[in-house]
């Protein structure tokens, strides 16, 4: 069995841990618990064992810990669809990732699609797709597109 390391990166409180927990353990909690450092989960997808590094979110005080990215076979860029600023910061985070580990397969999760105050328009989504990224409008709460997101990143790491 092949093992792949995949990192979840994104701004503070965009739902990286929720997406991981929904996919790995099929659980969702409304309670917000911030991740300190990194959380690691493993899950098997067909013939691949995915080792998911759920890296603590970035904010103005804590830059992303790039050391955790080393050796990643793929990256999931996560943003909060109700906070446009987190979507805009994806580019900056991607630059950090590319600087540290180079071009690696990447997918984008615009999370919290179940909330009414969604503020990402199609133009923004298309601009992300134009960069060659697969974009998924996910909901960790309802599980919408969560499986597709992780299956896609596995598929891309095999290419």
């Amino acid at each position, binding site marked *: *069995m*092949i093992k792949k390391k995949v990192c979840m990166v994104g701004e503070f409180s965009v739902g990286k841990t929720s997406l991981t927990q929904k996919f790995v353990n099929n659980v969702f909690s409304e309670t917000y618990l911030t991740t300190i450092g990194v959380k690691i989960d*493993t899950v098997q997808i067909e013939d691949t064992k995915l*080792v998911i590094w759920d890296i603590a979110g970035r904010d103005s005080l804590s830059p992303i*810990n790039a*050391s955790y990215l080393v*050796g990643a076979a793929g990256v999931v860029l996560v943003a909060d669809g109700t906070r446009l600023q987190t979507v805009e910061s994806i580019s900056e985070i991607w630059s950090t990732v590319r600087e540290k580990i180079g071009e690696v397969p990447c997918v984008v999760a615009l999370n919290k699609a179940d909330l009414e105050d969604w503020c990402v328009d199609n133009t923004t989504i298309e601009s992300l797709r134009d960069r060659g990224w697969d974009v998924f409008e996910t909901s960790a709460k309802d599980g919408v597109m969560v499986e597709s997101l992780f299956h896609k990143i596995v598929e891309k790491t095999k290419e």
Partner: protein
Amino acid sequence: MSQLDELRQIIIGDNSAQLTELKQRIENVEQRTKDVAEVLSSAIEKELSSQQSGIVDSLQKPVTLGLKKAIRSEPQEYAEILYPVMAPSIRRAISQAISSMMVTINRTIESATTAQGLSLRYESLRTGIPYAELALRQTLLYRVEHLYLIDQNTGMAMTTLHADNAQSLDSDAVSAMFSAIQSFIHDSFSVDEGSRLTDLKVGDQNVWVVHGASAMLACVIRGEAPVSLRQELYDALDMVRTDFANEIAEYDGDAAKFMGARSILQPLLRSELKQEDSATENKKKDKPVGPILFSLGVLAALTWLVVHWYDSYSRLSTVKHFLDQTPGITANHVIHDDGKIVVQGLKDPDAIIPYQTLNSYGIAESDIRFATVPVRSLEPEMELARFTNEFSLPTGVSLYKKDGKIYLEGDAPYEWLKSNQTRILNLASDKRLNISRLAADEQSVRAAINARYDSVRINSMTSSIKTEHSKMGVVNIELEVSSKEFASLVSSFSGIPWVKIEANIK
């Protein structure tokens, strides 16, 4: 001869024949095979002596494939060849495993009978960790429980080994976490590039990490391992790095490539028991005999108390049960006092105690003492016994119990009725005796009249029909007497309600 041939002849000269021969030799496959066979063995020998591995590396794959194919096609033959080599090793391994198991069992049994063993039982109940595991921990000096060969770059486990019965963990998550901790410490403490995490300690578990250029070996140890183990870890990691240099450099998450590394790491998964001396010391310290005797004593005392209590309770219950069924006794309390079974309540002096039945349950008459209030019981059984003793019943009269009542029934002789009339009528009046079917015997009445008055002429004598609802049976007599005799007759039969006389005065 052409000009070209002439030129060739000038240049090559006499070597032409040799070239032709060489060409034929190359084209002849059989000859070429023979030539290769002649030089192959010496070429291999030369290669080995010069410590170069070109030919060996080239031959490795075809030889392995050939060997595999040959073993598959003729497994029996290879088994026979290998048997003399493998069998002693297998026997030795089994023997060692059994011996090790016996030591473990002995130690477990030993520790189970000591105060320490009891303490471990409690600890096992409290924590949910199996007793055997706790007992083993007590006797272990150290045990290497997990080994993780980790890729420095990705933090993923290239291969992992675990000791038997060691707590199972998600190897990839643990490996990744070691790597993450390494990164965290490296970033947080601004240490040199060459400084690495080498030790972690959690409770009685230690994690030793040794680092290579692109791989690290993490070793989870329970207890205190000797320092020399760290050097062994380095040696093993170096060996893996040498033998699997390419696989490590090109690691892509495929752990199958490192199956061969397991045989290098396997010897590190070992344990060492505490020295026998210290075990003996512990044994002396524990002195298991004392606690065992004390426990047995307590157990015996408890058993005796339970048995005694049950026996006492059982005897009291038996006595009460049978007394409750005995007419004339109301046993309110049956208790133990001064070695006797004491019955408290009410008791008719005429009550018949079922001593014979109680005796069959091991309760003698002398064991029972009655501390009762004497009463006259009106229970039908007691009344019947009492009346039977009191009245000497003549022939034709019976006394019996029916539906909770006492009946006196039959044709009674006049003389018997006369002597008992007061008592009978009083009992009937108190409703303690039913006399609705009691009557006077006609013959005895006639005999009584005739015995006293010879001249009396009895015209008729009839008896009333006796029923349950009649007050009593009555004999009606019609006779002819003188006025003087009539007065005497009436006087004689006065107070006897069972006889009624009507007379014609002469």
